[in-house]
């Protein structure tokens, strides 16, 4: 999907290609649904409709509406409208990438340490705040969360090596 548009004001993926991509992705999900339903049986069993009966027809409906959406996308969009500019997408990715690292860091480092890191990186990298402020907030928020969740509501959150070391 690298069609670029030549209109003024920056380039980016066209709305049309994203629209087509979404329709195809949903259709793929529907196909997975159909295959999964066929596996468990879509017919009529001893206890009535089998487990795959409902999801099968649901997936078929998804597939049909995806086909309609695909045709509409092909007909209505010329490929000139932008989905978003590359600069905007870069902004979006600057949230998505740290968050992706974050969600995989949570099981390893624990909720508190990784949350502090996320807030710190985000503030420094995107907000460009002074170290003092970054440090204050990225330490303060996890500590506040700890007090609120573990002490007040008694909800344990995942912990990592730091909490073990501190003996919490």
């Amino acid at each position, binding site marked *: 999907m690298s069609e670029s548009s030549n209109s003024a004001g920056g380039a980016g993926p066209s709305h049309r290609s994203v629209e087509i991509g979404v329709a195809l992705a949903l259709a793929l999900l529907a196909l997975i649904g159909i295959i999964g339903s066929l596996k468990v049986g879509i017919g009529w069993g001893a206890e*009535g409709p089998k487990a795959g009966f409902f999801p099968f027809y649901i997936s078929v409906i998804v597939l049909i509406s995806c086909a309609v959406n695909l045709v509409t996308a092909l007909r209505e969009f010329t490929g000139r409208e932008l989905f978003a500019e590359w600069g905007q997408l870069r902004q979006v990715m600057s949230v998505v990438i740290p968050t992706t690292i974050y969600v995989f860091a949570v099981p390893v480092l624990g909720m508190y340490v990784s949350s502090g890191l996320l807030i710190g990186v985000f503030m420094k990298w995107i907000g460009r705040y002074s170290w003092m402020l970054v440090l204050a907030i990225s330490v303060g928020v996890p500590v506040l969360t700890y007090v609120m969740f573990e002490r007040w509501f008694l909800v344990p959150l995942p912990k990592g090596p730091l909490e073990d070391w501190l003996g919490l």
Partner: protein
Amino acid sequence: MLGITLGVIIGVLPGLGGANGIAILLPLTFSMSPTSAIIMLSCIYWGALFGGAITSVLFNIPGEPWSVATTFDGYPMAQKGKAGEALTAAFTSSFVGALFAVIMITLLAPLVASFALEFGPPEIFSVYFLAFCSFVGLSKEPPFKTVAAMMIGFALGAVGLDQMTGQLRLTFGFSELLSGFDFLIAVIGLFGIGEILLTMEEGLNFRGNAAKINPKVVWQTWKELPRYWATSLRSCVIGCWMGISPAGATPASFMSYGIAKRVSKRGKFFGKGEIEGVVAPETAAHAAGTSALLPMLSLGVPGSPTAAVLLGGLLIWGLQPGPLLFVEQKDFVWGLIASMYLGNVVGLIIVLTCVPFFAAILRVPFGIIGPIILVMCAIGAYTVHNNTFDVVMMLVFGVAGYVLKKTNYPLAPMVLAIVLGDKAEEAFRQSLLASQGGLGVFFSTKLVSTIMVLGLIALFWPLIQEFFSRLRSSRVAT
């Protein structure tokens, strides 16, 4: 009190709306008694409804989708230095709308519930059918996109253990999928993370107007408001109607604004800062937001995503929403309804007194508030099942939500479908079981066929409308 303050903060913050705010806080309430938990949650719901108005008037940024229409006249008023009047009008009319809807719930809910007690599986399915069809017919998104989003929701809801046969399905051997996709995770991802990504893309320039609310301004505005009683009443009715049929608060506010613009004598001044243009959408949005709880309580069919999250909460506490709730859990239901009255009054007082404070929160730059919201979402997603895999799923839903929202796929029906999927399927299969597989069971009695026909009308509503307008124009032509 706490609930409302939290709720207003949630409503004010971008990326934290009523639905996912409640979804995040829901796990925290598991240790409370159901009654106090639902009171807390419904207060958050109120708070979020009120909070949305603050951002629309002062910053021209709708905090909630249903306050988009409020920005049309609210922001111009603030620019003219009449922010106080606009906010007072917005809060007061939300109060009126919500009060109207609560009174309606008090009067109607027991009636609807006792009526619904007679329902068998086919009738229950037909009610679901009607709810989902009205989504397709009434939403402003392309109908096939609504269908696709909704059905994906059903498919996601079907993953995991099949409740009727005890069989695993669509898990493809992944043990993480055994219990299926939890709608709370979907809500936090789709609405919370998705919203943050959208905010990032649009760039962040909060240029707000200062708000000064003092008793004098409030009093003067209140003196002026009764003049718009007709607008107000009309908006209440629109809101209630749209709220009960699950169209929701957003279309209700737009519709009410549109009609007020057409009917009002000063209609041509709308969009330039007309107080009536604030009254109409706010009243309707709150009437809709509140009356969405009516079908949830009495039929077990939520009228909005937020109501759906509340419904999920009831299920987790072991309460079965629906007509039986009124028989078996009388205390709970009336406690909730009483808390609606109370929450509404307290909410109005809090927002009127604390506007400057909430506006200050908004001035906290997104570079700080953004990651904190991300962390809150992650904690919320984790605490649903104490499972880190859910946090990963939340991010997946978030990115999906961003793309789907940009491509005009509505998210609300998807969430409702995930919540109601199992129950709709159960009702459908039980009906088929009773009829030995014939679809005729859905047209076997008067009641069920009426509801089904209503559903079909709702489904094809855009086509019917077009047909009639063509008929009319051809008549004019001849």
